[in-house]
């Protein structure tokens, strides 16, 4: 059974009303996509509210993006629902030298592996994660944070073999 469509505007209003200080830049990107920034400190609270009250019962993906030019690491959550097709992109900004955020495994069970992956590839430290260790990388690569952008030649705009 499909749940009644929750409209994007209603969700944004409800989020803004409930978390006036911790949710910012919320906007409708397209028909089925909305996005918002969350304060890193209250991410669990916000996710809990989204899951229990606003029917976002499915964690589509969780990952990180290294924004080296802004000296930030963004943690990106894509929350969606089995009942309707709206996807909420929730982001939290973390300082690059100490990316630390609360784990949301207590809300979304399957965040476990996503967080382990973001940890080994970007070095995001998840507090209160049940088992924060490497998932796909071998032990000796841990600490290299391979998907971070601080490698030589960055930003190298064009593939060398083409131009």
């Amino acid at each position, binding site marked *: 059974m499909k749940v009644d469509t929750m409209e994007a505007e209603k969700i944004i209003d409800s989020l803004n009303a409930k978390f006036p200080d911790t949710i910012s830049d919320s906007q409708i990107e397209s028909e089925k996509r909305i996005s918002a920034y969350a304060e890193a400190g209250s991410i669990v609270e916000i996710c809990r509210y989204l899951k229990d009250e606003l029917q976002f019962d499915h964690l589509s993906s969780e990952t990180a993006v290294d924004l080296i030019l802004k000296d930030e690491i963004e943690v990106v959550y894509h929350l969606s629902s089995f009942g309707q*097709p709206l996807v909420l992109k929730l982001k939290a900004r973390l300082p690059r030298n100490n990316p630390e955020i609360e784990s949301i495994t207590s809300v979304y069970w399957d965040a476990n592996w996503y967080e382990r992956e973001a940890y080994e590839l970007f070095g995001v430290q998840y507090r209160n994660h049940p088992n924060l260790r*490497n998932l796909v990388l071998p032990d000796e690569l841990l600490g290299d944070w391979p998907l971070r952008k601080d490698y030589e030649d960055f930003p190298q*705009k064009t*593939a060398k073999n*083409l131009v």
Partner: protein
Amino acid sequence: MDTNIGPDEMLIHMGPHHIAQPGPFRLNVKLKGETVQDSDVEMGFIHKGIEKILESKTYLQGIPVVDRACYLAALTNEEAFVGCVEKLAGIEPTERSQYIRVIVEELSRIQSHLLGYGEYTEFIGFMTMFFYPMTVREKILDLLEMTTGARITHSYLRFGGVRDDLPEGFEAKCKEAFALLRRGLEEWGELMKSDTIYRERTVGVGVLTPDTAKEMGVTGPPLRATGVDFDIRKDEPYLVYDDLDFKVCTETAGDVYARIWVRVAEIYESMYIIEQALDQMPSGPLFPENLPYDRRAPVMRVPEGEVFHRVEDPRGEMGMYMVSDGSDKPYRVKIRGPVFPTMQAMPPLIKDSQLADVVAIVGSLDPCVSEADR
């Protein structure tokens, strides 16, 4: 998992190479007698670093790379990647190429399900059954080969269209293969339904309830076998799925048996979709006229932005999150494959089951380890 074992317990490492595994991963199982007490999945044996590779390739070069994420769902992977770029660059593929994409992607779904079906029966010891679907699968692969030029990794989709039109005689060959497949499915269905040993091994084994499946983030056939009608093709239609008539195949039992039947029903449904698409397909150009880039442009600068595009993979929800910084290469691509959460759900699913059933349960999830590892 706590690796300390008690006096009457035993730790068994299944894999990374095990006859009954669809790919290299290691399942550490703690047993008491023959009952699974606890388990733990180890991955990374075929970690390819595809997300990192994509960051150093131009957009066009990325297409063959995403093919390799899961070789059984190459076309749907491409659809997710190409769809992301199209959304970022504001390209709308022409109607004809959208229909062609639907056709090849459904063919790809059929061949993937046929392998899953055959491979699965092999895992539970029904060896004969493996070769029946594989014979017909070869016919489907022939169709894909004559269209895309490759059996497994196609590199067929392009930004705004497809590489080539459908070849001559495609429709006739399609009919031939589908007649064979329909007859085969009926026969195999009889074979499996009437086999008491097969039923003993699958009915009521590895049961997932709708709520636990949702909680664990499982998508695709394992979720639909519990009765949840979640299908991206219906919920968030891409391409021309909106104009096509098809139903979301569900079962209610949620056990191993139901998962296999969902796949079989989906094969029928995919054939139906392809037949409709062949009937409805308009003629016309493959690429839109106002394409902002040359069709083969090796260097295309995609506008800054980010997008999350989801498609329905044979195994569930495949989403890609792409960030562009305005250069000719993606700044970051996150591949959210359906197998990653499904594999994570394995340990709770096999808890308290018999060791002999572990293979049946794991096989019925049809995990493509290559994609989970990426």
